C-alpha cells in the first residue's frame, strides 16, 4: 500500500474514473464501451470527460443494443482488446445474459483453454433512487452461480479503483457491481496503479459477539448498526464481502468460529441471494460446530422494488433493521 501522502479524498465515481484513465493511458488495448458514456458522461457521470481526453475511438458510445454491445465487447476481448463495458443499469444486463453467461463465461472452457475473454462489465445497481422495479435491482447473486465469471462489489472508493484495475489485469471476464448510492461517497484513494486482490474479503470492524457479512452499500449500514450496538455492549465484527465469486471462505469461517453467530446482509431479494450461499457455505463447513445460533439473512422483501419512497426504503435492509436483527441474534432471541 502507498504512503499516506499518496492518499487523496475522492468520490467512488472519481475513483472508478481514475482507474479507467490510468488504464487507458497505460494500455492502448483498453477501450470503454457503453450507452451515452461519451459526451453525456454516462447516466451516473462516471465516465464524465474521458471522451475529451481519450477520444471517441477509445470511449465508444454504443447504440441501445445491450446484447450486441456486450457481444462486441466479448468478441473484441477474444481478439486482443480489453474492453470495459458499462451497462447503464445492471437491470439491462438481462438483455445480454446470453453473451455474458453462454459466451464470455464459457468460451475459455468450451475451447479447452485456447481462448481468453478479458472483458470487464461495469454494472450500476441497487435501489434508493426512486426509479422503480426495472431500474433498481440487485441481481449479482445470479452471476455467483456462473462458473467462468468473477463477480465483485466494491464498497469504498479505494476498492472501486483497485478492483477495476485488478479486473483489467485478470485474463477472465469480471463483473463489477457498483452501487448508485455510493457514487458520491468520498474516501481516501491511493494514487497511481494498484490492485485490490480479487476474492479477498476485508474485515472492516473487529468484534467478538456476532459476525455481520455485508456487501456494497450494506457494509456502511452494517458499520453504522455495529456502532450503535457497541454502545449497548454488543460487539459486532463487520466483514466486507467484496467478491461474490470467488467468495473468501477463509475470512468468513475464521470470524464465525470466533463469534459463533452469523448474519448476512445484502440488497438482493432474500431468497436465493448472496446470503443463501454464505449461510450454506458456513453450514457445511467445519465452522458448523461453532455456531451458537441460527444464521440470519437480511435481504430485500419478496417483491420487485416499489416506486413509493417509503415502500422502497422498507423493501431493503436499513441501519435500524440491521441493528435490530443483530441485537436479536446476539441475545439469541432467534
Amino acid at each position: 500500500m502507498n504512503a499516506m501522502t499518496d492518499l487523496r479524498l475522492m468520490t467512488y465515481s472519481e475513483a472508478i474514473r481514475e482507474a479507467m484513465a490510468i488504464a487507458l493511458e497505460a494500455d492502448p488495448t483498453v477501450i470503454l464501451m457503453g450507452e451515452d458514456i461519451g459526451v453525456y458522461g454516462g447516466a451516473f457521470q462516471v465516465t464524465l470527460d474521458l471522451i475529451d481526453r481519450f477520444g471517441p475511438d477509445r470511449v465508444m458510445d454504443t447504440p441501445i443494443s445491450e446484447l450486441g454491445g456486450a457481444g462486441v465487447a466479448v468478441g473484441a476481448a477474444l481478439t486482443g482488446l480489453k474492453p470495459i463495458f458499462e451497462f447503464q443499469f445492471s437491470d439491462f444486463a438481462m438483455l445480454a445474459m446470453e453473451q455474458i453467461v453462454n459466451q464470455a463465461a464459457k468460451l475459455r472452457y468450451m475451447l479447452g483453454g485456447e481462448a481468453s475473454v478479458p472483458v470487464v462489465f461495469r454494472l450500476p445497481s441497487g435501489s434508493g433512487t426512486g426509479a422503480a422495479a426495472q431500474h433498481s435491482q440487485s441481481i449479482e447473486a445470479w452471476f455467483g452461480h456462473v462458473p467462468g465469471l468473477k463477480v465483485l462489489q466494491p464498497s469504498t472508493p479505494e476498492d472501486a479503483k483497485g478492483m477495476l484495475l485488478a479486473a483489467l489485469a485478470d485474463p477472465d471476464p469480471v463483473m463489477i457491481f457498483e452501487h448508485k448510492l455510493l457514487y458520491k461517497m468520498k474516501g481516501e484513494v491511493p494514487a497511481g496503479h494498484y490492485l485490490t486482490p480479487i476474492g479477498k474479503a476485508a474485515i472492516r470492524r473487529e468484534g467478538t459477539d456476532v459476525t455481520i457479512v455485508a456487501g456494497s452499500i450494506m457494509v456502511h449500514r452494517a458499520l453504522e448498526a455495529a456502532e450503535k450496538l457497541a454502545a449497548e455492549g454488543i460487539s459486532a465484527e463487520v466483514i466486507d464481502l467484496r467478491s461474490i465469486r470467488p467468495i473468501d471462505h477463509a475470512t468468513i469461517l475464521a470470524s464465525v468460529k470466533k463469534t459463533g453467530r452469523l448474519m448476512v446482509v445484502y440488497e438482493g431479494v432474500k431468497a436465493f441471494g448472496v446470503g443463501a450461499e454464505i449461510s450454506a457455505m458456513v453450514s457445511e463447513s467445519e465452522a458448523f460446530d461453532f455456531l451458537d445460533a441460527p444464521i440470519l439473512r437480511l435481504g430485500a422483501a419478496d417483491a420487485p422494488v416499489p416506486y413509493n419512497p417509503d415502500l422502497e426504503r422498507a423493501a431493503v435492509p436499513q441501519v435500524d433493521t440491521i441493528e435490530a436483527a443483530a441485537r436479536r441474534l446476539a441475545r439469541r432471541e432467534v
Partner: protein
Amino acid sequence: MNIPFAIRTYAPEILREALKRMYLIRRFEEGAEDSYMRGLIHGTMHLSIGQEASAMATCIELGDNDKITSTHRGHGHCIAKGADVGRMFAEFFGKETGYCHGRGGSMHIADVKTGNLGANGIVGGGLPIAVGAALSAKRLGRPDVTVCFFGDGANNEGAFHESLNMAAVWKLPVIFVCENNGYGMSTSTARSTAVKRIADRAAGYSMPGVTVDGNDFSAVAEAVHHAIARARAGEGPSLVENLTYRWRGHSKSDRNRYRTKEEIAEWMERDPIARFRAELIAHGVLDEAGANAIETQAQAYVEAGIEFAKASPAPGIGDVTRYVYAEAQG
C-alpha cells in the same frame, strides 16, 4: 384552400377534445416538473413536451378496446389514450389512488381500462408485448388494433427486429409508431442508426413504412389512419415514423452537452400544439375564445389533479409485498 386530413376526417368535437388533451399533456408535464422541483415527486421522469401531436394524433381513432404499449416517455400517450390526470399525479406522488397504487411511478404509468398496457422502463420492452396484444385480438376474433410506441433509440434493440418480423409473418393488427426525436438520450440517430429514415427499415419486414412530420397533427393522423385501416382489414402491421423533438433534457440528469441551444430554439418554434390550435381556428373548428377556454380547462384539470393526488393516502408500509402475486381467490 387545402383542408388538412384531420379537419376533413374527424368531427369538430373530436378535434376539440384532441386539442384539449394536447394541452392537458403539456400542462400535466409542466405540473409534474414543478412538483418534482418541490420534492413532491421523487426518482426521475422523462418529459415529452414538444411531442404532443405525435401522441394525440396517433391515438385519435383508438377506442378503449384498442391497446397501446408506451415507453419511459409515456405521459403523453397515457393522456392521449384517455387517462385521468388526477390518478396520474397520484401515481407520481406514490399514492394508493394512483394508477399503479404507488408501485410504478412515471416509468410504469398505465391505465389498463383505457387500453394503455403501460409505459416501460426497458427501452424496446413494449415492442414484443404489443405484438402479443395484437395476437390476442386476432386469435380471439376481436377487431382491436394495438399501437406500439417506441423511440428512435429503441429501433436498435433486437426486440425491434424480432417484433416487426413476427408481426409481419403473422399479419397481426399492430401499428409500430416510432417517435423519432433525433436522440436516444445523448446519442443522435446518425451516430446510432445505420439508416437515414427508420421507416426505411420497414422494407426488411415487407411492411409499409412512412415518415411524417411528427409535429403536424394531420400528417400523423393520416399516416396512422391508413395503418389502422390496414390492420383492421387483416392486412398486417405498418411502421409510422413521427419526426419530432423533445424540448426538455432526456431526464432530470441531462447536462444537454450533445445538442445546441439553437437547435432547441428552432424546434420550439415548431410547437405542435400552437400549430394544431391555429389550424383548428383557421378551419373554423373553434375560435380564439374557444381555444382559450380549452386551455384554461386543461390547466384547471391539472390543478385539480395535483390537489387530488396530494390529498390521497399513501400505501401502507406493510404492503410492500402486496400485488406481487394474485390475491387468493374466494
